[in-house]
């Protein structure tokens, strides 16, 4: 008399399928997760010590990015504005607004404002703003429509493969230097032709050597 019953066959097979499927799903899930915003930290809301609204400063006041991010064309870091820069205007306007209290406090105590970092690369990645900006890569390309962000979020995955896309074929991401800070910039005329033309003009070429970013 067999120890198994007809339903054993089904059970046995189902279990096998579950085991195999489960293993596959776990691996696939991890790989997938690494590619979705949840995994790359995109669209993550981040509390800043001061409710700074880029939207308002760019659209309503028409301030150029470089007014505050002064060193973007000259150094690796774009440069977080010193409190003094804020006070240039806010000593005059909104100089009583409670929202700006932390700024004034910083200015008078000399304590820096503890901004929270949004775009964060590993320490072994050496990203340099100046070279990108000078070779015609716009702020928008990596940081997105800042002019539409009440609070800054990371819009690009910032994964290595994402960097590589552009490092292998920069042309589509180039724009004339004068439009670097323009938001929602559209190439007039044939984008491909323009891209290639800019490649020549700024002497841009693909760089995928490891030491370009890792030192």
């Amino acid at each position, binding site marked *: 008399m*067999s*120890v*198994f019953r007809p339903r054993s066959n089904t059970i*046995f097979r189902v279990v096998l399928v579950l085991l195999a499927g489960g293993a596959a799903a776990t691996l696939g899930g991890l*790989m997938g997760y*690494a*590619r979705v915003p949840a995994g790359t930290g995109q669209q993550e809301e981040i509390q800043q010590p001061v409710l700074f609204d880029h939207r308002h400063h760019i659209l309503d006041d028409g301030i150029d990015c470089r007014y505050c991010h002064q060193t973007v064309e000259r150094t690796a870091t774009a440069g977080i504005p010193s409190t003094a820069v804020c006070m240039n205007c806010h000593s005059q306007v909104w100089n009583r607004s409670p929202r700006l209290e932390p700024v004034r406090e910083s200015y008078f105590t000399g304590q820096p404002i503890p901004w929270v970092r949004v775009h964060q690369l590993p320490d072994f990645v050496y990203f340099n703003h100046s070279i990108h900006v000078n070779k015609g890569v716009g702020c928008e390309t990596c940081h997105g429509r800042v002019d539409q962000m009440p609070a800054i979020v990371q819009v690009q995955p910032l*994964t290595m*493969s994402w960097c590589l896309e552009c490092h292998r074929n920069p042309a589509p991401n180039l724009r004339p230097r004068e439009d670097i800070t323009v938001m929602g910039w559209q190439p007039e005329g044939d984008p491909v032709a323009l891209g290639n033309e800019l490649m020549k003009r700024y002497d841009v070429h693909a760089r995928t050597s490891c030491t370009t970013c890792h030192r």
Partner: protein
Amino acid sequence: MSVDTKRHAAVVNRVDPLEPVPVLVGRPDDRELNQTLFAPVWAKTRKGWLVLFALALALTGLLFTAIGYTFAVGIGAWGNNIPVAWAYGIVNFVWWIGIGHAGTLISAILLLFQQKWRTSINRFAEAMTLFAVIQALLFPLIHLGRPWFAFWLFPYPSTLGVWPNFKSPLLWDVFAVSTYFTASLLFWYVGLLPDLAALRDSSKSHAKRVVYGIFSLGWRGSARHWRHYRIAYLLLAGLCTPLVLSVHTIVSFDFAVSQLPGWHTTIFPPYFVAGAIFSGFAMVLTLIIPARKAFGFEHVITEKHLENMAKVLLATGLMVAYGYLSEHFIAWYSGNKYEQFVFWNRANGPYAPVYLLMLFCNVLVPQIFWSGRARRSIWVLWIASILVNVGMWCERFVIIVTSLHRDFLPSSWAIFKPTVVDWSILIGTIGFFGLLFLLFLRFVPSVSASEVKELRRELEHEAAPPHPVERAAR
């Protein structure tokens, strides 16, 4: 031990040395074979087994403690340094992989060559292969500086957009070893099916029936199944044969493809494969001699088997010796002073004792098998087989450490000294190997009953020409 095995033992003793020793003593019928061959599985756990198991368990514990420690503090826990960046880790890896060659070789190649004496030792040898390869598989992982990134060695689509480097012999290793393990495992399991079914059907307890029933997947000896089974088994053997040769060839590439004097040698692939078979058969002997005594398998694993294996040892031992010879000759002949120095250094450098031990164990010891009496003497066989295993470990040490510690620039020469952790891992793997093997002996028939039954029929049909399909099956 059952009555009839005693009888067989008696038969063995009465055999006249001038007569060819049979591969199967007596004419036990199927039921008898079932009884004797499954006896170890059904019998009560023995004291001896428990003692050995406890020992193996302890050593396994040591192994994983040592590995844990290495992971915690880094490779610095070992004796490795610059220039000797590879040492025990890789020595053990190559040694175990080599041992893991006999099984598949015996069952696959001997099957293709229709060697009757294969039948009663192949299951045993395959199991040994699996467990040896498991030991070997540990090392590529634990010898990494950052083992938690080991998965970077596999070509999976990562967000880094970087791929492994397929020019690296190490990557070939990854593929070769994992393929070899998978293939051996499946080959072994497929071969096990009929016996598992037999166990299921001949076991008394309900639990055992369920367990064996699950693992035998519902095998019921149907002619429809046999038809696919035989050809599948044959094909697996056909694939495993080149595979087993490729694996050690690729392992030897780790060295041959580099340009270090003492490593960069074209003789390596054949010489490694020969060495692998050499050590593999040695290990089979080391294990099978006590096992057949303990379980009373003298009638199925007869002196014929042992003697044949001794012959294989002799043959492969000579090949290995030839490998050494040609290495040294080419070094001298090349006129390359770096190459020449390495071989001079092996015999005269700080590691000369290991080198001499290697020569003794691998070149001298096998020579005693020219004498038939030595081949038939259990003790000589057993001790020789152990010595060969030691010798083969020394060979890997000589190749890896001795070549590394004095290479091109004398300024960077240095001495390698193994640490406690190094030793623990080496001994630990032996314990872990033993552990798995003991479990195998206890829960799986270590001689393939179905194949021995078939063999018996063949021996009966000897007179009449075998059936064509059956020939294919063998």
